[in-house]
Each structure stands twice: as structure tokens, then as C-alpha cells.
């Protein structure tokens, strides 16, 4: 078993209303030194590494399903073998 964490974020130029609203909320709590908040999601996959190459699976799953390339990009980390 291999654990992979896939990080999905908005592309640089894409407007992220959620991040803006959260930043405002943090400021109104008095944490004015928090300059910027970006929000992303991650997916932890447990993959049985026996047959196909793990990286290939991760790429295909991300590109076919997890990531919307109109707006998002992704990265992943292969973590410890479980």
C-alpha cells in the first residue's frame, strides 16, 4: 500500500471568493497580520501498488476526476508505504 496526497488548488488568476471572505473574517477577528488566505482541497488515496505504476494511477485519477482544469491545478506527494 502506498499513501498519496493530492493537492488541488485554484489556478493563479482564478478568483477565489471563499479565500477572500475568509481573509476578511480573520481580519475582523483581529489577526491583521494574516495577509492572505488561499483555500484548497486534498485527497488522500491508499493505493495498492502491486499492478500498475502508482504515479500513473494518480495522474489519471487526478486528471479524469479530481481536478477541473478550467480552474484548478494539482500536485501530489507520495507518502510513506503503509
Amino acid at each position: 500500500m502506498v499513501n498519496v496526497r493530492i493537492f488541488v488548488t485554484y489556478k493563479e488568476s482564478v478568483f477565489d471568493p471563499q479565500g477572500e471572505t475568509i481573509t476578511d473574517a480573520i481580519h475582523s477577528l483581529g489577526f491583521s497580520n494574516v495577509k492572505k488566505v488561499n483555500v484548497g482541497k486534498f485527497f488522500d488515496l491508499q493505493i495498492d501498488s502491486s499492478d500498475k505504476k502508482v504515479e500513473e494511477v494518480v495522474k489519471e485519477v487526478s486528471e479524469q476526476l479530481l481536478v477541473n482544469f478550467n480552474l484548478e491545478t494539482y500536485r501530489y506527494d507520495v507518502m510513506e508505504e503503509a
Partner: protein
Amino acid sequence: MAIKAEMSPKEIKETKPYIEWGLTEKEFDFISEQLLGRLPNYTETGLFSVMWSEHCSYKKSKPVLREFPNRSKRVLQGPGEGAGIVDIGDGQAVVFKAESHNHPSAVEPYEGAATGVGGIIRDIFSMGARPIAMLDSLHFGEVDNAHTRYLINEVVAGIGGYGNCMGIPTVGGETTFDECYTGNPLVNAMCVGIMDQNDMQKGRAKGVGNAVMYVGAKTGRDGIHGATFASADFADDKETQRSAVQVGDPFMEKLLMEACLELTGQHKDWLVGIQDMGAAGIVSSSCEMASKAGSGMELILDYVPQREPEMSAYEIMLSESQERMLLCIRAGFEEEVRSLFKDYGLEAVVIGRVTEGNDYVLKHKGEIVTNIPVSSLTEDVLEEPSEETNPERISVSEKLNNWVPDILDARETLGKMLAQPTVASKKIFTQTYDSQVRTSTVVGPGSDAAVLRIRGTKKGLAMTSDGNGRFVYLNPLIGGQIAVLEAAANLIASGALPLAMTDCLNYGDPNDPEIYWELHKSVLGMSEVCRVLNTPVISGNVSLYNENNGEAIYPTPMVGMVGLIKNINGYLTNTFRKSGAKVFLVGETFADFAGSEIQKMMTGKISGNLRSINVNSESEKFFKLLKAIELGIVDSAHDLSEGGLAVGLAESLFSSGLGLKANLTTMSSAFLFSETPGRFVVSVVPENVENFIELMKDDCTEIGEVTTNRKLQIKCQDTEFDFSVEEAQKVWEEAIPCLMKSKD
């Protein structure tokens, strides 16, 4: 697109980047030689290319749009503003418009649909009206592949996501499926608002020295060239379009709407004009506001709130960032406006002034980046005469005999018909829309038209959106007539007097003479019915170039219509209510199978020609029925459309707990599925039967009686069958959920 990379006017002339932005060489030369007397610079070329796009200028469709009648005693504002306005009495008015977001939704279905909803809502509140309802009109490919299912899920989620968050109920609409929409789904949204007549606003910037104020979200690089993008056929080259994706922020729009309604409702003395920033963002809103008032305008782009660093003048002007509005504010009230918006957590910034004359001047970083006549962007657009030819398929089909179905087992055919996606229940989609927020929805999705009460009055509004591309494809003139009749029939069946309509004209590439012919003929057909029914066209939208890799969609005009219910307690739905009630068929049934659901189901395609319609007698019949409904002698009414009488009878029984014994011995079973337009199934309780027949005369035929046995029992010329209502409803309700779950 950094500033330093901008080409010089000479380079622009030589390398012609404007062609990619949608401007033709002829137009470019006309602009340089006739309008400016010099070559436009980079920014100016950008402004021309978006303002001269079909989406903003209607240069191709304008001659056709002139066919639409747009006046009646009730019309307070016709086409030309954010939305049209109709008098509904008591000093109130209803405001509505429809908008297409087909191309953005094909590329990014969630945000495309969501920002389409956001845009049409801004059009309504920019008139000073409170949006009270949304409707949609969606056309997808067949539900047999994963990509279409993805589009459906995302589009529906986007519409709900935006409308639900805004607190505007989505109360109706339509969803159909046909192969021609596979690569180019149609996503049309309509918004209806209500207002006091003395709150009416216009998009106008007049009064030298008055302030031009920008309110709402900051400007980013999103959606640059969205307007030209909407006006050009697109191939499968996705890479370049990805930058055009705009993201909606319904929370921001909710704040913006409340702030604008406070301004338009309570501070009319501060406000000169207001317009939303839709397609082509700041440029279109500002130059249209100046143009309509005959003013000049000067804007300082450095003051435009910006989300991204280092934006060029070109980018600032063409950005289609969402949730922004442009105001013209009487000089001296800028501070008041700023503080009103600040109360809602929004920015309002003076970005320029109204000037004398006709100059549109933009300054950026201390330089004049644009100085052109306002009218060169708005008035001087070259109308493009288009050629028209009658497509061969039409002349061929005129000569052929029309197809008539051969029904072997009517019961089985009805079962299959109820499961056709275009006929089947759309609840799986509509229940993801909040259809009740604001607690005025008397009839939500599912009946012929949605019905809303108007608080504080006895009145109600009925509304519907309809389109049937199949009929228009087979015969644009008659198909256009049917589209308007169908919308009106939906309102009549709810007990409403049709007031006026809006439209989205969804067609292929207008440079193709056959497509232009389809556009022209269908608009003629629609216009004729509008005149007869006295339902002028008060607003609308044109979406051309709906093709994917060269294949055009069916010509699909969407008709959005609003009607007035005099006494809200007299509204009707399509559901039978009382056992013992007599059931009547209003309207005659002919062998109308061309373009019908049964033809599609049995042959896999549509073909044939449409029978011509006597619009005057249709109209007389409609108004007679409305009179009967208003007299209170009708218990339920349902207009017949896809699937014909058999489907209409079944639908009238769903969730009623009742049954029907129908005696149709003059009709062969094939005619159960004919789609002759302008027909209704109505139920009338026995004590009203005599009055009903007296009023409707030959236009009605008694066909049966409502029973308690929860069975649909039909006897026709050639056969006789029973269908358990419960079973029929199950088939009808489960068809789409089941298709949406499939895995291939």
C-alpha cells in the same frame, strides 16, 4: 498580455490580431478610415472588437429582431434596456429578461451556468426591480454518455448554486435532450422581478460633471474576450479558452443586489442611471450609458478596483469579472453613495465623469489610451446583411408523405414514452433548486407554468420558458409559431392572461444562409403569434454560432412568457382534483407526428413537414378557455405537448390519488401520441359542465370521467388498456435518475 508587449497601430494593421478577436478586415478599415480617420491603437482595437461582436452589437440579427412587435398598452419599457417592463396595475410592474450562457457552459459547465444566472439577475435589479423568480431552459445531448451526464450535473448544480444562495427561487424551466446539443448544450436563464413603477431606472449617463461610479467586485483578468468568444464557433481547442472562465460569487451579488435596491428605491435623487456590467464589462456598460444619453465620458482606469497587479488598459476594459455594476451619480452625492455601499461591505469608487460632446476618453497611468467617439462603439456598427436560402431538407420534406406510427401495443408504447428523458419527470434536477424561498411560490416546478402570488394584492403571476428545436428545424415559420403558442398555452392553463414575452434565439452560424433563413423565418412565425395574442417581445437575447466542429444545433428559440392572474385563488394546476369530474379535450387532434416524441422514439430521428396553423382560431380558443377558468368553472387544466394526449392524461393523474376512464372511440391509438399544438386536457365538475360546453362549443370534446380507482383506462378505436397510475408514475419518475446513474 503585459503592457510592453502591446503592438503599435501599424503592427496591428499589418499583423491583423483583430481577426482572432472577431473583427473583420472590412470593419477594421471602416473604423480606421471612416470613423477615426487614423489607425486605432491596441486598446481601442480591443474595444471595437468586443463592442462590434454580435453579442454586443446584434449586427447580424438586428434586421430580423425588428420583426418583433414590442409595444402594447401595458409595455412600459421595451427592448433596449437591461430588461423589459410591463404594467400589472396598482402602480406595480413586472420586469423580465432571458439570457443565454451556452458557450461558457460548454467549456466550464458549473461556473458557466452560475454566472449566466448571476448576469440575468443583475439585469433585473439594474432596472430597480426586486428579482422574485428564476426559470431556466436547458437542452443537452442524449443521456447516454459520461460527458453529457457531467455537463448536466454541473450545469444544474451551477444554476442552483447561484440562485439558491441569492435567495431567488428557481420556479420553472425546461430540460430536453437531443443529439444535436451534445457538444453545444443550451443554457438559458430567465429572471422575473417586480417593482413599483416609480422606481424605474435606466442605463443612462447624462449631465456633464456627474460621476461615473464603479461598484461591486474587483476587476481581474477573467473572461477577457468573453463576448467575442460567445460570438464565434468553437472547435475542440480547449487550451486557449481556459483563461476565459469567470467564477461567480453569489454572496457578493446578494450584497450588491440589496445595496442597489436600497439606492434605486430610496435615493432616486442621487442616481441618474444604472447598468450592470455584463458581456464586455466596463466598456459596454459605460459606452452604452453614454450613448443612450448622448453624452461623452472620461474614465481614469487607475481608479478601477483591481484584483491582479499590472493590468493593462485593454485588460481592465475588457475584463468580464462578475458582480459589478456601473452607476451615474449626480455630482455631489458621491460620498453618500460610497457610504451606502460600504454599509454592505462593498466598494463604490468614482472612476470618471460625464463630459460634453461625444468623446469616449480613457486615461491610464497618466496617458490617454483611448479617445474615440462614443457612437463609433455603439451606433456606427456595420449591420451585416446576410444571405438566406431555403435548406434542401425543407423542400424535400414538403414533397414526402408524413410518417404515421404503427402502434402494436398502446399500453407498452405509453410506458416507453413516459420513460423518454424529454417526457420523464425532471424532479431529480428541480429538487436541487430552492423553489420556495421568499414564500410566494404557489406552483413550483412541475406544472405547466409556475405561479407566484404578489404579496399585498389579490393577484398572481404565471411564468414559463419553452422551446422546441425539433419543430423549428422541420419548419422554422410554423415551429416559431408553435413556440409562442406553447408558452401562451402554459400560462392559459394556469389561469393567467399572457402579458408579454422575452426570448433567447439560439442558432448556428448566421453566415450560413440556411441558418440565417431559419432565424428569419422562425422570428416571423413568432412575431405573428405575438401580434395575435398581444404578447409583445419586451427583451431578449441572441446566441449565434451554436455549433460544435461545424455541426449546427437545431434552431432553438426559447420563449419566456409571463402572465397575470387576476385572482390568485383561481389559479389551476394540471392535476385532476375530484372524482366524478368530467374530462374534456380542448382542441382538435390531427395526424401531427413530424418532430414528435413518438417519431423520435420509434424511428430514432425526426422528419417530415408541419401542418399549418390558423393562428387566429388558436387564439380565440385560448381566450375562451381562459374565460372559463376565470369564471371558476374549470377544475384543472393541462396543455398538451411532448408525448401528446396519452402523456397528458397520465400527467394529470400523477399524485392525484385518482383514476380516469377515457372513451376515445373516435381516435385510433396512434393519435394518442400526436402532438397537435394548442390542445388542453381539462376537468370540469358535473355542475359546471353545461356552462363549460356552452362557452367552449365545438372546441371541446368530452372524453371521460375522473374515477377513484387509480387507473388510467383508455378505450380507443382499435384497442383498450389499463395502466396503474402508481406504476406509470414510477416509470416516469425513475427514468432520468436511472439514466444518470449508468456507468458507461
